[in-house]
């Protein structure tokens, strides 16, 4: 059941991305181009999504468990650190360069020809580089921590 609801959520999410115009990188860049001929549409995407999302999170706040019986897994991190800001900036530069963020790129794989495929492959490569760097720094930390 969890798997079916995940599939439905992903499908709804993708349909929303397509209908909203997020799967057209030129439109995304048109929104990011404040100094040029600005297309404010994507602010409406965020607005609509947050409107509904806010209600959902308010409903979820008083529930210890999800409807399918699992515990609610909400993020627990609260620290605003360098990783968060630098990661956000890195992502934003990539987003501005191509006009793709992860969701729309995945939802475009079946429609956009080779270009979204290339982007997604590079994105997965970037995520693997992240995993490798994390492993490396974890191993490094272990090595430099003095034994007690």
């Amino acid at each position: 059941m969890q798997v079916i609801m995940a599939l439905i959520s992903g499908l709804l999410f993708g349909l929303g991305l397509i209908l909203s115009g997020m799967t057209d990188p030129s439109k995304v860049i048109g929104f990011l181009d404040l100094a040029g001929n600005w297309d404010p549409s994507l602010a409406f995407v965020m607005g609509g999504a947050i409107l509904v999302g806010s209600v959902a999170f308010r409903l979820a706040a008083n529930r210890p468990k999800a409807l399918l019986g699992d515990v609610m897994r909400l993020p627990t991190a609260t620290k605003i650190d360098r990783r968060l800001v630098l990661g956000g900036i890195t992502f934003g530069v990539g987003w501005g360069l191509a006009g793709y963020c992860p969701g729309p790129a995945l939802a475009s794989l079946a429609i956009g020809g080779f270009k979204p495929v290339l982007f997604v492959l590079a994105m997965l490569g970037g995520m693997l580089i992240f995993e490798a760097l994390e492993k490396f720094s974890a191993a490094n930390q272990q090595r430099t921590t003095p034994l007690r």
Partner: protein
Amino acid sequence: MTIDWSNFTPWSSLAGGILIGLATAVFLLFNGRIAGISGIVGGLLRPAKGDVAWRIAFVLGLLSAPVVYSLVTPLPQVRVEAGSTLLVVAGLLVGIGTRYGSGCTSGHGVCGLSRRSPRSLVATAAFMLAGFATVFVVRHLVG
């Protein structure tokens, strides 16, 4: 700044946003999870037992969206201006950045702002400002 009225689509964008919000709501209320795409995909790259099937299902839903969409109404246009090299550079930055910063437009932007997380507000401000700055440099300083 001028407004690009010819490409402005407030209604379909609002409707699409509401659908994205509904998807987030379904996933949160039924599965108890955050619909953060970069986190869902990233988790597949460090697979843990019992934590893979729902991720694959969510991604499959996302991938099949254009097929389902086209059964009802014609798909909107897709215009990719970036060339291959730029797409690869952008993809790498998006991959590393979203994992390092623990989220993307969906996880921080939609879910995080919906639950009023200060951390997500900072992350969203960071990637939005970087996106604005990048397009400014590419379109108005270099281009």
